[in-house]
């Protein structure tokens, strides 16, 4: 299977002498669903930024679908869901406006969306179960529903690689598992390579094929079932039952 993401002997430091990541090797095949977990400050977000070509490594190489990540030519094929706290804007914005923003890279910058793009936006809203809320202001929805809207935004771009950075921050455990089931279904339906980055990985332990633990480097890489018990996420003990 061709590789979607490939990091080879990658090291990175924001300041000299203070490495955030050291000698990281990671290969994610196309179509895989991988959870990237680890403590806050362990280097998860840095790893994601390197993988997406938003930062350059101090040493080593990063490739996206076979191309150098920082010069990746098919950026419209990348979907990204940021932490909720980083999402911008003031005042009212509807679910449909959020999801339509995900069509920007594919549908062009100028003028209104074409009929085909509008149909894709509607389908993405429907896929995450928000059709009844399409015209509702985002602020009137629960935290879990808001995250669904941003997941629909990412899927509206018809990505080949979807990266979710702490998608469940501030969302209760039940909503986290509901989101995980949604992602599992969307992943099965569309076979999008998915990187789920979170320090709370319990919700997806039972769903992902592979778990990568990051603590300044990769300290575990394998099926969640083989994860040493002391590293399990205690917030979702029932997810493994």
């Amino acid at each position, binding site marked *: 299977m061709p590789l979607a993401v490939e990091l080879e002997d990658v090291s990175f430091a924001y300041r000299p002498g203070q490495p955030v990541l050291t000698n990281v090797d990671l290969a994610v095949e196309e179509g895989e669903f991988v959870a990237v977990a680890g403590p806050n400050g362990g280097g998860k977000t840095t790893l994601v930024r390197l993988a997406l070509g938003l930062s350059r490594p101090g040493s080593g190489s990063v490739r996206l679908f076979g191309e150098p990540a920082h010069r990746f030519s098919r950026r*419209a094929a990348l979907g990204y869901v*940021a932490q909720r706290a980083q999402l*911008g804007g003031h*005042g*009212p914005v509807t679910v449909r*406006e*959020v999801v339509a*923003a995900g069509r920007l890279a594919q549908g062009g*910058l100028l003028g209104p969306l074409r009929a085909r793009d509008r149909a894709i936006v509607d389908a993405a809203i429907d896929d995450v179960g928000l059709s009844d809320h399409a015209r509702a202001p985002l602020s009137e929805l629960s935290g879990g529903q808001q995250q669904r809207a*941003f997941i629909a935004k990412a899927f509206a771009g018809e990505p080949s690689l979807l990266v979710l950075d702490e998608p469940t921050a501030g969302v209760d455990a039940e909503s986290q598992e509901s989101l995980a089931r949604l992602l599992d279904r969307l992943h099965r339906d569309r076979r999008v390579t998915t990187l789920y980055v979170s320090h709370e990985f319990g919700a997806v332990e039972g769903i992902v094929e592979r778990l990568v633990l990051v603590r300044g480097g990769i300290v575990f890489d394998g099926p969640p079932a083989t994860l040493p018990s002391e590293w399990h996420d205690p917030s979702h003990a029932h997810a493994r039952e």
Partner: protein
Amino acid sequence: MLESEFMRLAFATGAVVGLLAPAVGFFLVQRNMSLVGDGVGHTAFAGVAAGYLLGVSPVLTALVAAVAGAVGIEWLRSRRQAAGDQALALLFYTGLALGVVLASSAGALNVNLFAFLFGSILTVTREDLVVVAVLGAAGLATVALLYRALVGVVVDEEGARVAGVPVIPLNVLVAGLAGLTIGLSMQIVGILLIAALMVLPVIASVRVAWSMRSSILLAMAIGLASVFAGLTIAYYGDLPPGGAIVLVAAGAFLVTSLVDAVRRRG
């Protein structure tokens, strides 16, 4: 009131300004850059003073200085050469100091300069109206054409950057439009108050709007109404138009805040 040609010119220019300022200001407010207009306004002041010193149209030099200042602040911000508020402070104080020095050198620290600082309904000429109408229409057309892209960057700047949307050029474009708006608006509203017309209608509209689209359209309607009401008050009260226009816009904010409060209690 409209029998006087100067009032017809003021209303026609004001109509363009009233629509353009909130349309551009909307994207500044959404990106936590509400005070950029103030910094750029002070650069425009330096431009006016440079115009007097060089003996060319102060409107033209202010327009050039405002666009250059706005693009400069965005450049500093995007390259992380300075935090947003530091870049703004640099522009704000340098613009003001340069303006005072240049105006003094040109012997122009007088009433004419006050007209630019606080607006004057007597200063708009037919030639000014043509410039404002052409450039204002171009500014509004740009916002309309790129509306979806600008909203996309506001909603999720990082996601847009990851997907290859040209975020930096779009942000520079908004900065350039802000400079253009300030350059075009200074005769009616005044350099020191134009930023308010870019911000107050927007923060008034978001209290009662239900979507991004309704927010920007309502902000433009409030901007237009504020200019028309403010010019009328300035004419009959013999007041500086800039102050009257901005006070009407502030009044609109109070009204929408009240409506919002009543709606929330209900």
